[in-house]
């Protein structure tokens, strides 16, 4: 994001990866039938884990609340199929570690019976807080991948008097087309959802940014938005990572969000198109977030395309539906640039799962890393204007503070640097490693401080106890002496026995 960007139409940062979106993006949306068994993870969002409120054996309907939000930043979980709760146990998380996390298992009865919904009839005459409340109750989170609960973001936008809502239809990751499909198939939902969000935060305009490699989506959205002049469709140059909020804000409004500030503080708020559609469903139809459109793509897939699937479906079940040409060499949740590598396909899809990629051996091939030749390609590609080569060199020798001094914390892990690196250095993994280690060190420090407080509390307790003991002993002694003195008068002998 250099000085020259002010004069150039196309930003100087970013990369142009082969997008591989078609033919999957052009295949009509298919509806995935509810599978026999669904695993609803309790932590599908950033923030506190939801607390289960159902019991094993209980019958639930589709859309019924099964786990409620816990803490300020959290989201409730609803059943994505009607059936019986068969277990509250653990399932492998969609996470590179392959560690398990808690999930509620629902055995579907195949009927897909919805719970009675309670739509808001005239949302625009309702209080903005009502929209926020209902969005929170529907468990809507950011569907672009960050999975930050939508409602606290609305409240923040309202509090900071945000005037511009940016609707993110960038979807710059290669292979993915779920947002594209939402915009092509349900443009009215997206536009209405965007207007609801505007109402909730009190914004006066909405800018819908769509990359120009999705002409069908732009046309459909333009048609749907024609009646609403406050919603403006803005085609963007196809450039990765255009879908990242800071970059999108810069291109659409010219505002550069400072490193230490949130986007809302500069007067804009970004929401994904799928999130807007989910808000529409939550308000107009009263439906909680229990299903989403997900892209299944990659060389190992026989019929790639987009599926409308209930959350909690095992990835393996989705593969069985679309068919596999060969055993996938690599599985990725999300896009190839920023996605999460998965160890196997017995993992449920979550709210933030925009796509599942099954790569064949050719696509999955990662060349061996060579030495850094200091060509500087990574610095040119970095959308945050960082120096990836300097940071990686320091992390390599274990100098994490040195890397931090080069603004490691501003890295958005977009992967542009690793993509352009002629030596194929796994730069993002270096940064992820360093960020994790620095967070761990921070945690250790907090722990040490907590220990200190606990140790002091114990010392204070011991001191207090000793003092109380000493006081009690002194009191008893005084009483004994008083009793002894009283013993001279035989009338109080009985009382002495009681006090001793």
């Amino acid at each position: 994001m250099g000085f020259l960007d002010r004069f150039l139409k196309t930003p100087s940062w970013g990369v142009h990866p082969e997008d591989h979106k078609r033919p999957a993006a052009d295949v009509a949306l298919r509806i995935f039938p509810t599978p026999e068994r669904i695993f609803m993870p309790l932590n599908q969002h950033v923030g506190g884990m939801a607390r289960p409120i159902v019991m094993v054996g209980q019958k639930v309907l589709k859309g019924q609340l099964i786990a409620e939000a816990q803490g300020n930043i959290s989201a409730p979980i609803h059943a994505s199929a009607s059936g019986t709760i068969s277990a509250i146990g653990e399932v492998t998380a969609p996470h590179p570690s392959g560690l398990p996390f808690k999930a509620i298992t629902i055995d579907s009865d195949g009927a897909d019976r919805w719970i009675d919904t309670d739509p808001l009839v005239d949302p625009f005459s309702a209080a903005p807080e009502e929209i926020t409340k209902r969005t929170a109750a529907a468990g809507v989170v950011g569907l672009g991948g960050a999975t930050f609960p939508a409602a606290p973001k609305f409240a923040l936008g309202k509090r900071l008097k945000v005037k511009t809502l940016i609707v993110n239809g960038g979807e710059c990751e290669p292979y993915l087309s779920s947002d594209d499909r939402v915009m092509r198939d349900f443009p009215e939902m997206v536009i209405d959802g965007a207007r609801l969000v505007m109402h909730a935060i009190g914004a006066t305009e909405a800018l819908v940014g769509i990359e120009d490699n999705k002409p069908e989506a732009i046309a459909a959205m333009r048609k749907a938005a024609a009646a609403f002049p406050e919603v403006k469709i803005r085609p963007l140059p196809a450039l990765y990572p255009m879908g990242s909020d800071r970059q999108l804000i810069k291109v659409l409004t010219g505002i550069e969000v400072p490193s230490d500030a949130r986007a809302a503080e500069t007067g804009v708020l970004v929401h994904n198109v799928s999130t807007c559609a989910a808000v529409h469903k939550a308000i107009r139809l009263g439906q909680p977030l229990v299903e989403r459109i997900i892209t299944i793509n990659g060389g190992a897939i026989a019929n790639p395309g987009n599926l409308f699937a209930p959350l909690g479906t095992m990835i393996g079940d989705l593969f069985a539906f679309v068919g596999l040409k060969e055993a996938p060499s690599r599985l990725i949740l999300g896009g190839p640039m920023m996605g999460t590598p998965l160890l196997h396909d017995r993992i449920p899809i979550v709210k933030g799962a925009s796509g599942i990629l099954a790569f064949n051996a050719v696509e999955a091939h990662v060349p061996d890393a060579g030495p850094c030749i200091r060509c500087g390609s990574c610095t040119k590609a970095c959308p945050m204007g960082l120096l990836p080569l300097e940071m990686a060199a320091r992390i390599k020798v274990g100098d994490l503070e040195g890397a931090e001094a080069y603004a490691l914390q501003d890295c958005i892990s977009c992967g542009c640097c690793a993509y352009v690196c002629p030596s194929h250095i796994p730069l993002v993994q270096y940064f992820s490693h360093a960020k994790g280690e620095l967070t761990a060190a921070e945690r250790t420090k907090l722990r040490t401080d907590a220990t200190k407080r606990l140790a002091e509390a114990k010392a204070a307790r011991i001191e207090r106890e000793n003092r109380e003991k000493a006081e009690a002993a002194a009191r008893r002694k005084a009483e004994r002496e008083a009793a002894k003195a009283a013993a001279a008068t035989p009338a109080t002998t009985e009382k002495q026995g009681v006090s001793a």
Partner: protein
Amino acid sequence: MLMSVGSLAAMGLALGSVLGVASRYLAVEENPIEAELQAMLPGSQCGQCGYVGCAQAAAALAKGEAPVTLCPPGGKATAEALAAKLGVKVDLSKVSDSGPQIAEVTEEICIGCCRCMKVCPTDAIIGAAKQIHNVIREACTGCSSCVDVCPTEALGMMPIPVTLQHWTWPKPASAHN
């Protein structure tokens, strides 16, 4: 001869008295680094380093009598911080850092004697007489004082379990080292 001895002696005297005066004005009352070092130690006074408490350990560190790797509960992170503060180099690969650990009660053999509760520096063990005790994971510092006093070996140390929140990406393996 007399001249040379005399001049050297005079110079020695003059310079000595200058230094003597200087040492009075530039005297460092207390090693100020000691307080900073003490702040970096966990402060649980567990005594695993061999000193009575963290203040004594900090004093030994400031004097250079103790290695920066002296604090087992602090682990690698503390050793690194101390080394940076003291400006010494330390080979952390040799630090027997089994990772942060916490105590755990094997409930089948706990007899509820309350001894561990008394020695715990952070009150991380809960329980009552003849009741099974338990360790509050968040409060345990992994000092292992309780393990030493347990009469039935019901207490043991185990590494802090890795959770999704605690997992970090490994450092990429490099072919060019």
